[in-house]
């Protein structure tokens, strides 16, 4: 059980770390710029949110199988992903992406673009403006986005079980472990896992609340 929890936390954290930078940048682009095909980009990124997770899993399977589109059946990469912990990471990353992008986009849209324009008139370059003004101003929303993505990754089931399987000690996560325990009628195990899920979820919510209540940067008061 503790292996499942440990593996879940590790793979979820890794998945979020992998996607956070590209997702935040994409969210910024979607929030601030108009370009051709913006709707399509936004739609594609959102697909995992509206597709059955098992369908996403199956699609990933087609990409990642040894004879799949990225393997010998296409680009011919030497992949060793399926049925390993790496598959869990991939599944979590793909399934958490839409949530992260959408929430981060809302966070950026909440930053008054005139503040950025103001920074530009003060001679501050676009890159500096992004890091010194936009990011700190969107901080609360971005933190919430990361936590949401992380909890989504922890709860990932359908795509995970499709491409990573449910191998105890190897690819079994919290959610697949609960599924197994319930299937074999091991109620004690299921209850224990339920307790762990509740704790992890609650801690995540608590920390997101705490993050959101923090000011973007603590300041002195006079």
């Amino acid at each position: 059980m503790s292996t499942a929890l440990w593996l879940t936390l590790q793979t979820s954290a890794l998945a979020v770390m992998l996607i956070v930078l590209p997702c935040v940048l994409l969210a910024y682009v979607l929030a601030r710029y108009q370009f051709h095909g913006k709707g399509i980009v936004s739609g594609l990124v959102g697909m995992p949110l509206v597709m059955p997770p098992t369908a996403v899993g199956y699609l990933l399977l087609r990409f990642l199988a040894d004879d799949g589109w990225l393997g010998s059946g296409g680009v011919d990469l030497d992949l060793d992903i399926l049925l390993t912990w790496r598959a869990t990471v991939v599944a979590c990353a793909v399934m958490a992406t839409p949530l992260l992008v959408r929430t981060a986009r809302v966070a950026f849209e909440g930053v008054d673009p005139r503040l950025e324009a103001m920074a530009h008139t003060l001679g501050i370059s676009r890159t500096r403006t992004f890091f010194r003004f936009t990011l700190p101003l969107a901080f609360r929303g971005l933190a919430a986005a990361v936590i949401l993505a992380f909890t989504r990754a922890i709860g990932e089931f359908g795509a995970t079980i499709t491409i990573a399987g449910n191998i105890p000690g190897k690819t079994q996560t919290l959610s697949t472990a609960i599924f197994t325990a319930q299937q074999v009628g091991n109620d004690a195990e299921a209850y224990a896992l339920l307790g762990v899920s509740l704790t992890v979820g609650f801690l995540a919510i608590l920390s997101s609340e705490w993050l959101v209540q923090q000011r973007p940067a603590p300041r002195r008061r006079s």
Partner: protein
Amino acid sequence: MSVSHQLELRVHLPLDRFDVDVDLLLTRHVTAIFGASGSGKTSLLECIAGLRNGVRGRIRLDDQVWLDRDARVRVPPTGRDIGFVPQEGLLFPHLDVRENLATGARRARLRGFEVEAHTREIVDMLDIGHLLHRRVTTLSGGERQRVSLARALCSGPRLLLLDEPMAAIDAGLRRRVLPFLRKVRDRFEIPILLISHDPLEVQALCDEVVVLRDGKSVAQGDPRVVFADPKVLPGAAGQGLFNFMEGIVARTEDGFSVVLLGGPGGLELITPPAASRVGEKVLLGVPADDLLLARQRLEGVSASNLLPATVAAITPSGALRIVHLTVVPELPPFLATLTERSCLALQLAPGVQVFVAAKASSFKLFEAGVAAD
């Protein structure tokens, strides 16, 4: 203060209801862009700051060309060295006041300013020293505007753009912000472009006014001449004219103050009680509409001020006449608006001696609430 600069504004920008289309050459120290809301003023300002796309024409400050569509020049806002003070101040909410002031320090340093001393001077001038560690969300409207103005000045701009600097402030506080703007004007040689829909503000601050209507310039010149034009303020002809003068508080008694114009031995005016101490400078404003003229010294009238004057000129303004009066030779003439009928009845003509009567309460005091330097 002699300032020589040239701001060339040839701007064409299509908007929803009309196009902004101006061709201006501004050479005065402080220029106002005056117009009703929705006349394209802010759009024009944003064009100058480089915050608008699709602008055609040419924008140049002295030898710096910021926009030239023909030569394919378009300097981004980051490179225009502009100090922009927007209507709502737009302070950075994640920074405190001191950090807000420091945001333009890089450019100020690049432009050769001794940043620390420069900032200290501006902080003292705008009296915001006690606010430096405050969060900007806790500032009052007037404080926010002063900090926004200070932030723009601290960045060492070549041009100061003020977008209705007092519009977001309630009327009582406006009188307190105005003196700060005048201080900035008097201290720095930076050309200032001010957007306003308030004739009082324009006359108190500006050397020149450009009247904008539906994106086009319909009048340009000395505010006291432009606002006398009935076409500029239709329906309120003559009511938009003010006389502004700087004086020194001579004494304050119960319920009134005496303000001295034109130095020692000059003219004494009875005004509402001043908050400033004796010896401090104050700005006085009186509407041209509030001045009464008499051929003889009036006896037994309630008006506290009775000033001997000479008619210098009479100019028409629609159905009204604007009488230019020399009261103190060193000061610009006072303007008084009269009907044509009154002018005839008093047989006014240049050179005629008259008395100007004004109630104490007609004089509005503009005080910063701090010692004048």
